[in-house]
């Protein structure tokens, strides 16, 4: 038996030895450094390899500006549409009882388990010139694939579940009592939604929109398939990064990557702030 005197340092029954603790923290930090922090630094280091001026200049040319504009346009269309879908779907699923609810939720989650490239492929097969729908639309002057609508559709496909996923658990937890109270007090359906439901879900909505937006602006695989990669027309920021990188224009590629990285960092910052300040109004899994 070990020395059983009062001077033995007490170790809590629910703690590991300090050596184990520091070893685990060290392993975690080292893994994160190699996998996450180093690539983050690499993006900025490569972008600034020829100095600030070269980096900023590379973002100023016509193709780069058009890529930034296109990416903003896509996000501006697809994110509000997906937010509207998310709100409608969450309302339908949480305020009504119907058969097949679990199946509907599975269908909404489906895009998460489909490869982005397969998603793009699906859009091409549905709306491409060879297809029934696509052929008719092209004949009438509305090309979808290799044009903005196709990119928007592909983006919406891969980001489809984001907002609904955030709202459904929150709205289930909040129940229907407040809406029912508003209705008995004579409020109309819309009024109930705007004055009772929306204030209760706004932070969860923002959270979902934030993640949806980050993914929408950064989507590569699905967009690569449907965009046709026409410089100055259908090349989004991620597509432009690929083209510049393949042309060995490293500074230009990484400068544009740095812009998207800043966006990712801002997204993370806002997300963390939401988790800290409005945890009670987010889905339970995001609470700290």
């Amino acid at each position, binding site marked *: *038996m070990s*020395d*059983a005197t*009062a*001077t033995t340092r*007490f170790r809590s*029954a629910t703690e590991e030895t300090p050596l184990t603790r520091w070893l685990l923290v060290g392993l975690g930090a080292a893994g994160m450094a190699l996998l996450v922090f180093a690539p983050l630094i690499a993006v900025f280091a490569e972008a600034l390899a020829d100095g600030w001026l070269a980096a900023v200049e590379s973002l100023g040319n016509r193709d780069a500006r058009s890529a930034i504009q296109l990416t903003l346009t896509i996000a501006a269309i697809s994110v509000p549409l997906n937010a509207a879908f998310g709100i409608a779907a969450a309302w339908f699923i949480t305020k009504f009882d119907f058969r097949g609810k679990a199946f509907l939720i599975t269908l909404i989650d489906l895009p998460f388990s489909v490869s982005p490239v397969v998603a793009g492929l699906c859009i091409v097969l549905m709306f491409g010139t060879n297809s029934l729908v696509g052929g008719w639309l092209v004949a009438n002057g509305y090309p979808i694939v290799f044009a903005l609508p196709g990119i928007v559709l592909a983006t919406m496909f891969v980001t489809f579940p984001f907002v609904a996923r955030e709202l459904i658990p929150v709205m289930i937890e909040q129940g229907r009592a407040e809406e029912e109270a508003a209705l008995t007090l004579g409020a109309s359906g819309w009024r109930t939604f705007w004055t009772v439901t929306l204030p209760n879900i706004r932070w969860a909505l923002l959270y979902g929109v934030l993640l949806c937006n980050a993914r929408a602006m950064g989507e590569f695989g699905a967009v690569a398939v449907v965009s046709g990669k026409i410089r100055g027309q259908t090349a989004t920021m991620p597509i432009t990064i690929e083209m510049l990188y393949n042309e060995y224009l490293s500074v230009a590629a990484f400068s544009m990557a740095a812009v998207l990285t800043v966006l990712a960092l801002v997204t993370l910052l806002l997300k963390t702030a939401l988790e800290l300040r409005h945890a009670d109004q987010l889905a339970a899994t995001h609470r700290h």
Partner: protein
Amino acid sequence: MQTSLPQPTAIEGAAMHIEIDEISKQFGVTAALHPVSLAIPSGALVALLGPSGSGKTTLLRILGGLEFPTAGRVLFDGQDATGLTVQERRAGFVFQSYALFRHMTVFENIAYGLNARPRATRPPKAEIARRVTKLLELIQLPDIGSRYPSQLSGGQRQRVALARALAIEPRMLLLDEPFGALDAKVRKELRQGLRDIHDETGLTTVFVTHDQEEAMELADMVVVMSMGRIEQIGKPADIRARPATDFVRTFISA
């Protein structure tokens, strides 16, 4: 990591007597226990009685090795046990929430402490099964071995937690609010159950409660605590007849 368990020191059947010598406990700047001293005779059934925040649970956890006193000593059979780790103490501890392992069956829960022993001192499988069966009979639930804790009632869970604590052949039995989570009817039944098990095993038993009726009815000796101090120690009848302080008088008449 702990690799060896102490060999049983007490002779089978001879219960241990516990001494608490000037134990105090600070949590940061607040004192949970002012220096308290207490002698628990072997084989006694003792209640630590007091309102929440009186330090009774802290004292129980110090006995079990789950907290370490800021100052003072704990003596088991006259030997200093203050530095013993929780594993070395071999105290059968029953938690207020019972803390059953919900991914294990009742059988696996009760066998846990025996299976956790290093190979040299671990009983063979058949012997473990025999002991678990015996314990299930002792708690009068012989047929629930294959169930999971989520399939049991509150009273059944409490008795399984008791059997699990007894399986390690503990040197003493420590119970934190053993009846706290039960409704009034079940509570009365299980009180007698604890008394029976205590009498059968002869183990020195300490339980924490805030219910004065429970303490008075069940214990041989009651320790009334308030704000980290011991207010009175005595037989239930004595405390009822001669409360030592105003606090004791108001608390036991509540």
